[in-house]
């Protein structure tokens, strides 16, 4: 008679003693392997009489099945425990990475670059191309072709840095991006490629002592449209579309009369105060509006200067400060922060 109960009991004791997958595997070999008590008992079945063989055989078979199942379960349990142990040892506090010195991070585009791109993209979306020009200019492009002849009082509006090149006061750093208008129109007339629909972003220079709201070197963007049948209404519509597209749908524009030598009629445009959204605050002096830029219909003297046929073509132009847009949007109290290059400033954008 084979004591299957004892064999199974001893086998389970082996299983229980195993505390790792390795030990479990060894125990399994011991208990269920070729040399195990179970295997020996199985081999001894042949010496039993048929009835006992049948009974013991079935008992042995059932015991083997139970043991195999027990080992499978123990394997799962130990594997899970071992994984849990490994994972526990592997624990990482990810917030350390948040607060540690980050070392090399991404760089940051200057806030003026970001603003310029956003403005360019807005205008490109409205069908404008983007034109550029040189930063030093001749008197013709910076002033005279723009209807500002020498000694014109309007020159007082532009404190100019003159360069010691050529005759005195003939070469200067451009005081606005408007010289590019003249280049664009001259080129388009020469090449017969009118109309022109362009925005012109770029760096400008005025001999103003820098303060919280002004820099001697600054960035402007201006727009120029010369096409058939262009009216003041097109200008006002363009400014309104731009305002909504760039500043937000709840920001609107309004015009009031102004003077620029190169446009007639001329206007200054204001937009809904972006801080109080028109409610009235300190920034907008309680009016709900803030001044953004200047605009107008291209002056007939300018069109004549570049040889645009006024019986076919008319146009408008507008312009405003890129730095000023950045200042407004980000609440930069002092414009001079833009040129300090303090990383603590630059890395906020």
């Amino acid at each position, binding site marked *: 008679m084979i004591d299957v109960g004892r064999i199974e009991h001893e086998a389970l004791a082996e299983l229980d003693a195993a505390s790792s997958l390795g030990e479990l595997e060894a125990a399994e070999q011991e208990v269920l392997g070729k040399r195990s008590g179970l295997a020996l008992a199985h081999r001894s079945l042949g010496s039993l009489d048929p009835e006992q063989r049948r009974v013991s055989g079935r008992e042995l078979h059932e015991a083997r099945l139970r043991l195999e199942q027990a080992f499978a379960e123990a394997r799962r349990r130990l594997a899970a425990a071992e994984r849990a142990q490994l994972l526990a040892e592997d624990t990482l506090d990810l917030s350390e990475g948040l607060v540690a*010195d980050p070392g*090399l*991070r991404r*760089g*940051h*585009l*200057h806030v003026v*670059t970001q603003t310029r791109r956003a403005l360019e993209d807005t205008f*490109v979306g409205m*069908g404008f*191309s*983007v034109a550029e020009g*040189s*930063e*030093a200019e001749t008197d013709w492009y910076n002033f005279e072709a723009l209807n500002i002849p*020498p*000694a014109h*009082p309007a020159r*007082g509006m532009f404190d100019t*840095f003159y*360069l*010691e*090149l050529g005759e005195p*006061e003939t*070469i200067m*750093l451009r005081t606005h991006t408007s010289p590019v208008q003249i280049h664009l129109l001259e080129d388009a007339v020469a090449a017969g490629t009118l109309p022109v*629909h362009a925005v012109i972003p770029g*760096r400008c220079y005025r*001999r103003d002592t820098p303060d919280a709201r002004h820099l001697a*070197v600054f960035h402007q963007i201006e727009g120029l*449209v010369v096409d058939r*049948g*262009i*009216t*003041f*209404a*097109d200008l*006002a*519509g363009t400014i*309104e*579309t731009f305002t909504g597209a760039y500043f937000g749908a709840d920001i609107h524009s309004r*015009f*009031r*009369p*102004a*003077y620029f030598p190169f446009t*007639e*009629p*001329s206007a*200054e445009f204001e937009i809904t105060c972006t801080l109080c959204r028109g409610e009235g605050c300190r920034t907008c002096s309680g009016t709900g509006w803030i001044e953004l830029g200047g605009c107008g*219909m291209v*002056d*007939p003297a300018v069109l004549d200067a570049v040889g645009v046929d006024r019986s076919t073509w*008319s146009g408008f132009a507008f312009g405003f400060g890129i730095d000023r847009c950045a200042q407004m949007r980000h609440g930069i109290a002092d414009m001079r922060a833009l*040129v300090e*290059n*303090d*990383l*603590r400033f*630059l890395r906020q954008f």
Partner: protein
Amino acid sequence: MRAPLSWLKDFAPFDAPPAVLAETLDDLGLVVEGVEHIGEGLEGVVVARVDGIAAIAGADRIRKVTVDAGMGPQEIVCGATNFAVGDLVPLAPVGTTLPGGLTIGRRTMRGVTSDGMLCSGRELGLTDDHAGLLVIGPGEGIVPGVQLTEALGIVPDIVFDVTVEGNRPDAWCIAGVARDLAARLRLPYTGLPPAPPVPPVPSVPTAPPVPPLPTMSPVAPAPVGSLASLVVDDRDLCPRMTVRVLVDVDTGPSPTWLARRLVMAGMRPINRIVDASNYVMLELGQPTHPYDLDRLAGTGLVVRRARPAETVQTLDGVVRTLGTPGRSLGDRGEDCLICDAAGTPVGIGGIMGGTSSEITDATTRVLLEAAYFTPMAIARTSKRLGLRTEASIRFERGCDPWGIDRAAERFCELAGGTAAPGVLDVRGKVPDPIRLRLPLARVSSVLGIELAGDEVASLIGPIGFACNLEPREDDGGDTLVVTVPTNRPDVRPSPHGIEDVIEEVARTYGYSKLPRRQPSWPAPGRLTDRQRERRLVADVLCGMGIDEAWTPAFVSSADLSHAGLSGPAVRVANPLVSDEPFLRRTLLAGLCRAVAYNVDRRQEHVRLFELGTVFGTPREHPPQASELPIERELVSVALAGTGDDARSAVDVWCGLAGALGLDRRSMTLEADRTIPGLHPTRSARVVTSSGEVVGAVGEVDPEVARAFVPGLANGRRIGWLEADLGLLLDSSVVSRRPDLVLPVSRYPSADVDLALVVDEETPAGRVAEAIEDSGGELLESVHLFDVYRGGSVGQGRKSLAFRLRFCALDRTLTDEEVAACRSRVLEGVAASVNAVLR
């Protein structure tokens, strides 16, 4: 310009609330920067007499002041010390709200209860003075308890601070602001009565004739022509001048109402004569100049060009040199000089009078000059002398040549004394009223609205533009004939003046009422390749952990010489900072300074780039068409982070070149000891296969780095990369990888490692090229993975270990094939760079 409402009301009945008036002015382009309420908030403030001053125990900044404001003694705690017992001072009793919004409460300080506050001029909004109390001078009726406004004669008023654009000299006076405002509000514009007709005295340069005027009364003074003469030699500079003479004048103070208006408008009363001249200028926009007739050596005026180096002492005491051309474009040194009849200079026409004939207390006879000067000439002289005056600003914008008479008459009304009959009036070519034909179709094609002729006339008629409708013409449109008033020098003759008149139509119609329309056109908006790739350059550099900077365009000579560029630079004629007169030739100085700024603030990982313009002097050979400087757009990178050096700069260069699709084989790094500002043995020029230098890479010379960044830690280096963006992005200079993709093999690749010993002077890049040249099309990639010197390699030699990967598109390479490739490469490098297998 400060415009008191009470003064504006002389011209039209403006009864609308001030806020509405301000808004209307804004909409007219006469932008109101501020509205000041004179006398508001002073209702409760009374005059108090100081009866006693006592110290407060334990306090050294405040004292106990006993005052009487008509209701017996009151104790006030006060911090000011500029008064004494017996003085009259303003008292704001408890409960008063001052102009600044401060409400006075009963406060106890150091055990003393204060029954109100004694006020400074600033606290009352009357003056800027906050150094002490406003001590009130004694005067009739000024007794304790009376209202401060009554004691000071303050009549509540409103002052609009109006900004007048440069093209609107007509609006730069009370009458002008009132004219625009009345027209918009459709109020009757009364104006001043036109000056009574004064028969002009024809004046000839040689002998001023006796005017044919009968004496008006037995005591009437002699006619002007017998008292003074007027000769105008240079009528191009002064197209019209008139002279009047007043006798028996009183140079005492002006009447209170007039002085008060001057103060409200921002001018200081001086004496009756000067005040009258200033008043007329503020009211009508016409500057005039009064001379003491008896201090003129020759009784009369001669107007002529200043001779070279002629001098005159102006009213501000400065001796001015005239008649000498300045630096300004087109300035030929033409100055309008006013001399007395004896030829002595007595003033600069239209800018400032001279000290020698200034009005004094002793003045009894006044010669009044009222003139029209050529605007451009005034602008040139004023700019060259750096002398901007109330008169010059108005004359250079353009006064009304036909408004002179009314202004002179107004002066005579206000100045007192007796006006000599007649006027001396010399005219050259005085601008006449402009007449324009304004097709109504043009109004609609500019403004996008349809306006009938009578609508246009009703808009601009009230501001002086006389309109007559011309019958319909053959071309189908109505036309208005517009006569432009002479006070509008901004309106040009035809054809450009048509737009000027249309602006007036728009302005009087109201910009806010004009229609809006979003235009459209078939051409798509887009960035150019250069603009897209410039963005890419910045984005790639950002991705490599480099922050964008914006550094100054103006540099000092030290900046340039530190950067190794002491050669010619473009100089600014009028720099803002005198020792930074040059335009930058490199971004090195700016970026190194930016590095220093951050190092000094203990910032880590300082890596900066900039995209910016540098300026070179104009090319001499071949000569340029103009004298413009040569501009180049550079991208420069300064790497001053931990471990940064020339190697990191090369990494950045590779990243950048890769992103731009630059073909590595089309560019080489050529070691160069002579790159300005860079480390002589750790820098190279970036050179294209055709020999064009597009940039430089390496390290900032340690001495240069120390000069710019004294705070740089020992052993730290600054990696440097600079490229000319124009060349870098020009596909005719730098060849790009083709757009077409290269197929990728599906078969396994085989690696071959080769340690090649070459001369120290042979650059690794050159060896890699030699490997590529001999590797054939099966060579997929070559990478350097180790450099070894010493040991068996030998003096003056180095061992470069390369990993070569071979692969075929259509099969797995056999060992024999790989071995053949290997020997071919070994033969190749032996031949071209004298390399041997280690």
